Structures are given as structure tokens and as C-alpha cells.
């Protein structure tokens, strides 16, 4: 059984210029111990999809559809139910560790408050558990760091604290939103390793939101590619990386530098800009940038359909062949 099951999720924001759909009709699921990578450019709706799952959209955002977490439809749940799940069974690691911890609170208290809230333990027990978790995410001198303020820690250490916080209660699902973007490369690898261990040791489902295809290749079992608020391809990570079907996925992969590539010259890029969500092109949102565009693509939007290999793909080229 899947841990999280998203059906037809649409997220709309009311803005001064009218309503904007940041996420349109996204359906996906993630199973126990599985890691699902979500890739896409900035503004493709990948973060908003999962902020909607946690009920943390900005006040002008509305989510429709169904998000089943166990037996709970998170979109229909009241604040009290959501608060019971958030931080306990359903946790999130945010992108920017420098600003994601409360600056005026000691790191330890920010950890223990999660345990005290969800596990109903006393302060001493919470402290022991929190320090044990800090050790587990390989923070040196965990006891000393416990009493420090966030500004006294480096970015890498702060992200470890964030991960420790997300793992404290033994969650069923961790959503990691670009957990390594703000960190330098050596620290990135360590953080990813922590997430991998959380997945393997706790059998936790992980959703990894990123624009770094390398990160997805190293960690994810399945990958979903988002463009302009829609899933355009979803399937096994190896299959999609070896034989991408959607022209956008192909484009993304072509733009990724490879160590074994000996050609000299300019890095390839996808021409054009991601579309303005307020003025989406007709038909397939990718058609103005697509090298294989057909007449049909300009008029009609390709549905997300199953391919012979079992993945999902939203492209007429595929469906026609």
C-alpha cells in the first residue's frame, strides 16, 4: 500500500491579476521505503505540490483534489488533524537551512518541542532522544551543539539539524525540498547520504524535490518530471534516465554535463523560457520550446498516458508512435 496517494491535485493562487494554477491535475503516489524524485525548473510547481500536501500553502493558495496519507485525506482534514500528523508521521526538510531555523531559539529546544508535542515525553527524555538523533545525523559534539543557537552552526550542520528534526518521531514520509541546494558540494553528498540512510534504516518513504538530476539519479527509485505545473513524465528512474520519452526530459538530460563526455564546446540548453503560468501556451505547455513540435501539440494538450514500459508520459509523439 502506498504511503502517500495524490489524486488530481490542483493548486490555485488568487493574485491581483486573477487566479493562477501553480499545480494542475497532478496524480502520483509513493510507497513504503521508496524514494520518489520530483524534478523540474523553478516555478514548475514542484514545491507547491508538496506544500499543499502539508497544508502549508500561502494564505492566497487553494488546493483541490485528494491527498490520501494513510486513511486521511489531507486536503479535507482540519488543522488539528494536520497538526497531529505534521512533524510526526509526515515531515519536511526545507531548502534553506540558513533561514529555516528560528534564530532566537536554541537548536535543542527546536528539536525537543517536536518530541514533547507528539510523543508526550518529559524534557529530560526529549533531550536524550534529541541528542541521540543529532549523533545519528553525524553532528560532532552533539551535546554542545544542542545548547547552541542556529547562527552558531554552519549551513551543513543546520541542514543536519533540520533532518534530525524531520526524523525525530520516525516519520512515514519525509518530503525534502531541495535539501542540498544551499550547501556546497562536499556537504551535499553527506546530506544525501543521511537521507538515504533514513530511507533504508527507518523504511521511510522519501520525496526528493530538486532540480539536480544527479541527486535524483543517486537516490531516487522513481522520478516525476514536472513542467508548468503538470507532471509530464513519471516512472522508474533508470528507465527514464536511460531512455527518456518526453522531449522535455530529453532536453533536461541533454543539458546535464557528464564526466565521460569528451566533446568540446558550449553546453546545450533548452531554448526559450519556462512559460508564464498566467499566460500558458495553448495545447502542450512545452510546445514553444519543443524541438519535435507537431501541429496537434499547439491545439490540444497531450494526456498523461501509460507507456509500454510501464511509465507515464504526456506527449503526442509517444502516443502517436
Amino acid at each position: 500500500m502506498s504511503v502517500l496517494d495524490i489524486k488530481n491535485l490542483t493548486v490555485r493562487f488568487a493574485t491581483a491579476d486573477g487566479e493562477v494554477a501553480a499545480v494542475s491535475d497532478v496524480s502520483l503516489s509513493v510507497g513504503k521505503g521508496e524514494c520518489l524524485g520530483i524534478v523540474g525548473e523553478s516555478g514548475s510547481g514542484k514545491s507547491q505540490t508538496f506544500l499543499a500536501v502539508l497544508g502549508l500553502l500561502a494564505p492566497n493558495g487553494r488546493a483541490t483534489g485528494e491527498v490520501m496519507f494513510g486513511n486521511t485525506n489531507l486536503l479535507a482534514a482540519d488543522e488539528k488533524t494536520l497538526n497531529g500528523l505534521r512533524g510526526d508521521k509526515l515531515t519536511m526538510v526545507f531548502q534553506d537551512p540558513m533561514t529555516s531555523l528560528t534564530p532566537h531559539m536554541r537548536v535543542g529546544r527546536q528539536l525537543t518541542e517536536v518530541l514533547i508535542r507528539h510523543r508526550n515525553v518529559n524534557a529530560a527524555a526529549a533531550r536524550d532522544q534529541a541528542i541521540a538523533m543529532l549523533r545519528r545525523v553525524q553532528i560532532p559534539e552533539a551535546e554542545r551543539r544542542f545548547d547552541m543557537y542556529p547562527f552558531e552552526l554552519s549551513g551543513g550542520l543546520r541542514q543536519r539539524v533540520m533532518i534530525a528534526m524531520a526524523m525525530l518521531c520516525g516519520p512515514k514520509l519525509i518530503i525534502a525540498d531541495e535539501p542540498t541546494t544551499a550547501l556546497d558540494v562536499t556537504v551535499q553528498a553527506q546530506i544525501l547520504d543521511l537521507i538515504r540512510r533514513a530511507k533504508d534504516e527507518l523504511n521511510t518513504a522519501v520525496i526528493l524535490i530538486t532540480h539536480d538530476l544527479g541527486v535524483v539519479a543517486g537516490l531516487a527509485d522513481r522520478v516525476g518530471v514536472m513542467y508548468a505545473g503538470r507532471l509530464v513524465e513519471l516512472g522508474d528512474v533508470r528507465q527514464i534516465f536511460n531512455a527518456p520519452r518526453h522531449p522535455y526530459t530529453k532536453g533536461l538530460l541533454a543539458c546535464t554535463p557528464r564526466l565521460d563526455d569528451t566533446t568540446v564546446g558550449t553546453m546545450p540548453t533548452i531554448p526559450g523560457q519556462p512559460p508564464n503560468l498566467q499566460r500558458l501556451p495553448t495545447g502542450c505547455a512545452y510546445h514553444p520550446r519543443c524541438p519535435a513540435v507537431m501541429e496537434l501539440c499547439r491545439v490540444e494538450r497531450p494526456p498523461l498516458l501509460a507507456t509500454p514500459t510501464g511509465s507515464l508520459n504526456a506527449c503526442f509523439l509517444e502516443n502517436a508512435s
Partner: protein
Amino acid sequence: MWSYFARRVVIGIPTLWAVITVCFFLMRLTPGGPFDAEAPVPPEVLANLRARYHLDDPLWRQYVDYIINLLQGDFGPSFKYHDFSITTLIAQGLPVSMQNGAAALLLAILIGVPLGIFAALAQNTRRDYIISAGAMTGIVIPNFIMGQVLILVFGVWLKDSVLHLPAGGWNDGALPNRILPVFCLAVPYIAYLVRITRGSMIEVLRANYVRTARAKGLPFRLVVLRHALKSALMPVVTFLGPATAFLLTGSMVVETIFQIPGIGRYFVQGALNRDYTLVMAVTILSAGLVIVMNLIVDLIYSFLDPRVRYDERAP
């Protein structure tokens, strides 16, 4: 940290001296003198008066004498209230002003800050608009209008009801006499505090760490109180420092309208009468309080935000 504050106190002394000096010479530059307002006196009498108060000494001499007296804690004699020393006048007026100011300050904080938070939590709803509009009204109505309106309503129109309050006077600080002036003093500060608290709370609620706190499953009330409030109070404290100094030294307008024997009223009378020593004393007091309050504000900063540290050691 304490060495930092000791240093700040020491730095406050030249600041105060500069204020005293500028004020001393500005007062003397103003046309007229302390004895001009009285009925015309024979030139011999005037000369005697001037001699008695050393006004016929060269200006530098008067300045040096004043500073020397000040260092001994003597603010000099009043030029107007001939039987009083300035110290006596201040000892009478300051407690009155400070009591009213402290009450107004307390009222402003207790009403303004919660109302600002309340508005911020309901940003862009009717509740927010009503509170914000009320705050704007409180800011734009000058207190000499507010005072008159309060007197008209509670002192005149409601004269025969239980809500009747004295239109003025002090009556040795009886509670009914205090209500209107304290309220009148507090209104603009309530209004400013609502606006500052609302704005800063709205900003903090958008912070990433507030989102983290919500993602932990903490009830929203707790997120606001535990994670957002401290940061949101920083601009409030910044505003309250000088505001406290001004409130405690009395408002000339409010004390004049309500006939309260505080030092704010002395300040107006002193300025009109060219009562040099009285104006000097009130100015020095205000300046001293501003310096002290800014110091206290810096202390509170270090309590609200651990990143603010005042020792030489880098963290």
C-alpha cells in the same frame, strides 16, 4: 557585555554635555529675557534683578557657573518662581508626569501590541481593516484636538451620567482626574504600536522558520507566541525606547489642556517666560532619559535576539 554598557554610559556623558551646551546658548540667542514679560519696572530695579541672577556677567562666565553648579546637582534658581529652586519644581512636577507617562505607556503596550498581532493574524480581512483604520485615526488626530473632544464628551456632555469625568485639574492625583489625560497621552502611542506590531508580525509570519515551526505540527497559536513573537517585537522595542523617554517627561500639550502640574507644563511656561534654568533642566532630563532608554533598548535586543552581542569577542 557589562563593560560594553559601562562604556555606553561613559559615552553618554559627552552627549549630555553637548545637549546642555547647545541648549544653553540657543536659549540665550532667543530674543527677550526672563524679566521682559512682567509689568515694566524701573531700569534700576531691572539692573538689580539682572545682577541678582548674574545675567550681567559675561555669557561665558554664566555658562561656566551653570556647568559648575550642575555638577553639584544644582539646577539653579527659577527666574520666574522666585521662591523656588528648579530642583524643587522638578521634584514636584516630575513624579506627576512620570506617573501619567508610565500609565499611558503601560496602556499603550497592553492595548497596542495585542491589537497589532490580532490584526496581523487576520491580514486583509475586515477585522484587520477596522483595526488598521482605527490606528490611522489615532495617529492623525492631534492630541490637542483629542483632549478637547474628551473634555467635551466626558466632562460636559456626560456631566450628569456615571461616566462623568473631571474636565481638568489634578486634585492631588485622584483617579478620575487621571483617566482622561492618561488616555489622551496613550492614544497616539496605542495607534503607533498597532501599526508597528502589525507590520513586523506580518513580515515575520512569512519567514521560513515560521513555516518550519508549522511543519512540526505545532498549533498556530504556539507558532506565533514561541517562534514569531520575539522577532516581531524588535521594531516595537526600538520604537518604545525614545517613546518612553518622551512619555515620562510629560507632554506639554496634554498637561496644559488638563491643567496638570507636571514638568511638561513647566516646559511651556518656562519657554514662554524665558525661564532659562527651568527650560535647561527639563531639556537635560529629557535628553538623559533618551540616553538611558536607548541603552535599555539595546539590552532588550540582546534578550530578544541571541545574535546581538555586545562583547568584543566575535561569537
